[in-house]
């Protein structure tokens, strides 16, 4: 579905990503895991067209995405939920979702997708007239994911969906990710929360200083000695390191 080949990205004159290749197949959840500054977010932002690649190729269903605008990439079927829950905070929940369907001129289709989102997140229906900025962090994350769903895209790029959320909400977010996949969405997930990400993903790529250093199924990666030591190191330390 998505095939990234020899992608390099320079960001603010730093070589953020060097020559990485990976792929996401239809129906998979694929995780990109790595520490801060490993180049995960730059990779996501390049796929969605927010930043330009230095070299390499990004093929989506056989079509080259390098050089395409964010809007073209959304119409192609890829939607990006960036880290930090980027909702339209002064707009209502309903308007946020509607804007997800900005490129979907057919009102009926847009409404069907919105109804799907309301089924998935009933809380959003209750708060439909509320300003998005007044929602809790978890609700905003639901809204951001819901809005992405309304675009009708089939590939979802999710960047740090659990960042800054309470553990119980994180659990819900990970459940939603699986539900979305079961309903036909393909997901590329960037997470610092390596443990949870490895539990739900089919395959994972580990990034370090702009390069992919390891890949495998979620289980293989989770069982890798080096990975256990560096990224997992017991769940306790992982959680506490989040608070630093």
């Amino acid at each position: 579905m998505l095939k990234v080949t020899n992608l390099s990205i320079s960001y603010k004159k730093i070589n953020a990503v060097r020559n990485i290749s990976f792929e996401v197949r239809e129906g998979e959840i694929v995780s990109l895991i790595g520490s801060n500054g490993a180049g995960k977010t730059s990779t996501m932002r390049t796929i969605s067209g927010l930043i330009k690649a230095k070299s390499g190729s990004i093929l989506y269903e056989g079509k080259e995405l390098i050089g395409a605008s964010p809007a073209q990439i959304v119409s192609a079927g890829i939607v990006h939920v960036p880290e930090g829950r980027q909702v339209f905070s002064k707009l209502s929940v309903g308007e946020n979702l509607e804007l997800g369907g900005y490129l979907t001129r057919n009102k009926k289709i847009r409404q069907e997708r919105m109804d799907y989102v309301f089924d998935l997140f009933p809380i959003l229906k209750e708060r439909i007239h509320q300003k998005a900025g007044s929602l809790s962090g978890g609700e905003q994350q639901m809204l951001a994911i819901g809005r992405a769903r309304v675009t009708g895209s089939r590939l979802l790029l999710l960047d740090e969906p659990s960042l800054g959320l309470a553990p119980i909400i994180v659990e819900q977010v990970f459940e939603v990710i699986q539900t979305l996949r079961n309903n036909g969405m393909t997901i590329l997930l960037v997470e610092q929360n390596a443990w949870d990400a490895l539990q739900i993903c089919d395959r994972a790529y580990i990034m370090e200083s702009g390069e992919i250093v390891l890949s495998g199924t979620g289980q293989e990666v989770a069982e890798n000695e080096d990975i256990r030591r560096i990224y997992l190191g017991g769940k306790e330390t992982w959680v506490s390191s989040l608070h630093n």
Partner: protein
Amino acid sequence: MGFFVAQLISAIKLGSIYALVAIGYSIVYSIMGMINFAHGELLMIATFALWSLLNAGLSFGLAVILSILITVLFGVLIERVAYRPIRKAGESTQIITSLAVSIFLEAVCQAIFNSSSKALIIPEFFSRTFKIYGATVSVIDVVTFASTVILTIVVVLILQKTRIGKAMRAVSDNPEASDLVGIDKNKVITVAFIIGSVLAAFAGILYSGKYTSFSNDMGFMLGVKAFIAAVLGGLGSLTGAVAGGYIMAVLEVFFSGYLPQGTASFQTTFTFLVLILVLLVRPNGLFGSNNWKRS
């Protein structure tokens, strides 16, 4: 009583002009984060276009419609030619560019039409007068106020109800997220300039129609005052722009009417003094939110 009502009426009509222009500043600022100091020149363009078309013998109604279209064309052209290439260049570049555009347009206008002051002859109907509580009101005063109310409502409806209006609010709220749902920023910015230009055209025509004489420097001072009105109300806020426009006009007109003999010429000084005080207490303006600061 008559004097007070007369003052109030002149404040309302001047405030209407300020409000129309201030909305233009605000809309463009909220979407692009730039202050378009050339905005005032659109009033000049509308007025000179109308004047030329009337001189060419067109009927008043047709001339008004055409001059609004010409103003819109200029507004959109200014954005395309001068602002789009420097969109990511930083605030100071943008401000200097917009000042350059302002000076350029004014100079070109002077070169074509010279700087003498001209008179706009509007149909007699508009200068008919009637009395309210002993104060004289002319038809154009009523038209000015009514146009402002109607246009403001139209702008609000566009922003709240239409697809492009929601996209405009989205871009102003979160430019990156609006990219990610596929909103075309160029289109949104163009529409912002179209709306601003229509309002500026109305303001220019109503202003020159009321005061009947104008010259190529008319846009600058009006533009600056309307800009200050927008800042007073809170840049980026529509309510703020309208409120700022009327507050500014009330201060100006009442200072000039009620200050003691000999000090009335200091009306602008006193007006700006009040504005400075307001901004000391509320740096983001009356209706500006604290989180408005753009990066």
